[in-house]
């Protein structure tokens, strides 16, 4: 041994590819069971309607992280994959909801240490005067470490029409941390598709550092009805069978009107239906009410909407 350092190769860590025999057995099934990933995926399937591309990508990420863990187990290298994501889609397609869920999933898979989500917008990152932006952005990044940083409407960070906007400074700091501290936090950007595309065009560095661009499709009418059923269930209400048919009609009519925001419109419609239901119960004093009356939304509660009576969405105050 002429070189003392070469002789002391006792440090545990990734060995060379040929150091591990090709026939080394690995137990993927056991690893899968132990990680409880299936529970998370099942929960996702149950609680999120539709969103096929999103679920497929989450399944892929889960598979990759599991395989990485197995590789590490037999001494192969397993570099932490970059998991920064970008969610694009129309309003109300579940971007924020999935981001919240993503923190939990990545935590279960052991990719992030804590699994909390810090949701911010431009205001939380960009300062108002020179020297204000860097500490502000760094503070947010430090808070998000060990979890997920969710930047809603990320395209507002960059304002091309104003050269002296401090957003660019914030993006620079973000990029640096996204690159150097991949194991400490996951950044998820979210926003509308066209604006996000323009944002990435003017910030190619950002686009290339984000491995997963996930597009959230609009919901089909039957998916929206299923979402409505799920929302009511959460609030311990239910549709009568007439009401469900009426709601399906409502959705089809509402989708053609302006400012339709997918699941968010459904939520608002249900909130108004609950108002009308409460009003209906009040309007007949002396009637004997049962639990069934308290939990059931009738067709009348839906059909009284302005979508049916006037052909205009309720939300619009003209």
């Amino acid at each position: 041994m002429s070189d003392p350092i070469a002789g002391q190769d006792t440090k545990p860590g990734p060995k060379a590819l040929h150091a591990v025999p090709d026939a080394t057995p690995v137990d993927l099934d056991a690893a899968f069971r132990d990680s409880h990933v299936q529970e998370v995926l099942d929960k996702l399937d149950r609680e999120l309607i539709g969103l096929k591309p999103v679920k497929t990508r989450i399944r892929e990420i889960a598979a990759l992280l599991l395989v990485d863990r197995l590789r590490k187990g037999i001494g192969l290298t397993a570099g932490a994959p970059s998991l920064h994501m970008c969610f694009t889609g129309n309003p109300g397609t579940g971007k924020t909801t999935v981001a919240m869920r993503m923190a939990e999933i990545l935590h279960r898979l052991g990719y992030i240490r804590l699994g909390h989500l810090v949701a911010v917008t431009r205001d939380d990152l960009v300062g108002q005067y020179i020297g204000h932006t860097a500490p502000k952005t760094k503070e947010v990044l430090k808070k998000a470490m060990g979890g997920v940083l969710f930047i809603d409407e990320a395209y507002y960070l960059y304002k091309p029409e104003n050269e002296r906007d401090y957003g660019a400074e914030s993006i620079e700091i973000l990029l640096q941390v996204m690159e150097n501290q991949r194991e400490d936090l996951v950044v998820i950007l979210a926003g509308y598709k066209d604006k996000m595309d323009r944002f990435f065009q003017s910030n190619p560095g950002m686009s290339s550092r984000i491995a997963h661009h996930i597009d959230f499709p609009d919901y089909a009418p039957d998916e929206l009805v299923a979402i409505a059923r799920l929302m009511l269930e959460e609030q311990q209400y239910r549709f009568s069978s007439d009401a469900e048919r009426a709601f399906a009609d409502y959705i089809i009519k509402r989708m053609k009107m302006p400012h339709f925001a997918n699941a968010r419109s459904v939520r608002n419609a249900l909130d108004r239906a609950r108002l009308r239901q409460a009003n209906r119960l009040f309007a007949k004093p002396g009637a004997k009410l049962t639990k069934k009356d308290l939990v059931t939304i009738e067709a009348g509660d839906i059909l009284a909407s302005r979508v049916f009576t006037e052909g205009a969405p309720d939300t619009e105050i003209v």
Partner: protein
Amino acid sequence: MMTNPGNKVTQGQFSFLPDLTDAQITAQIKYALNNGWAVNVEYTDDPHPRNTYWEMYGMPMFDLKDPAGIMLEISNCRKTFPNHYIRVTAFDSSRGVESLRMSYLVNRPKNEPGFGLVRQESHGRNIRYTVHSYATDKPEGERY
């Protein structure tokens, strides 16, 4: 008689132990964060025991969940002040406490000359004693 070979400054927690490793510092920060304390990084080149107020490195860090952010600040501070004393403090903001719960050194100068005893003759035959850091004879920033 040398009671403290190397003249290591012994201030705060763990200061009689060998210097903490980064893994140990991370674990201590984790403990502070789990208790809901705000962790700060401070530095000085005047380690007199009565010098309580050190310079803060950056803003105090409230609402952090993970030690990674504080380790980042510590390593930045070490890069900026490689030959200063750097300590980590944990501030407990609960009412009735509102004070430091932890304070320990995470960086010290390579060479610590230590303190000398200064005697001052006062009225009568009285002697007043005080300690004086040899390093502070030089101006700030050139001490270590």
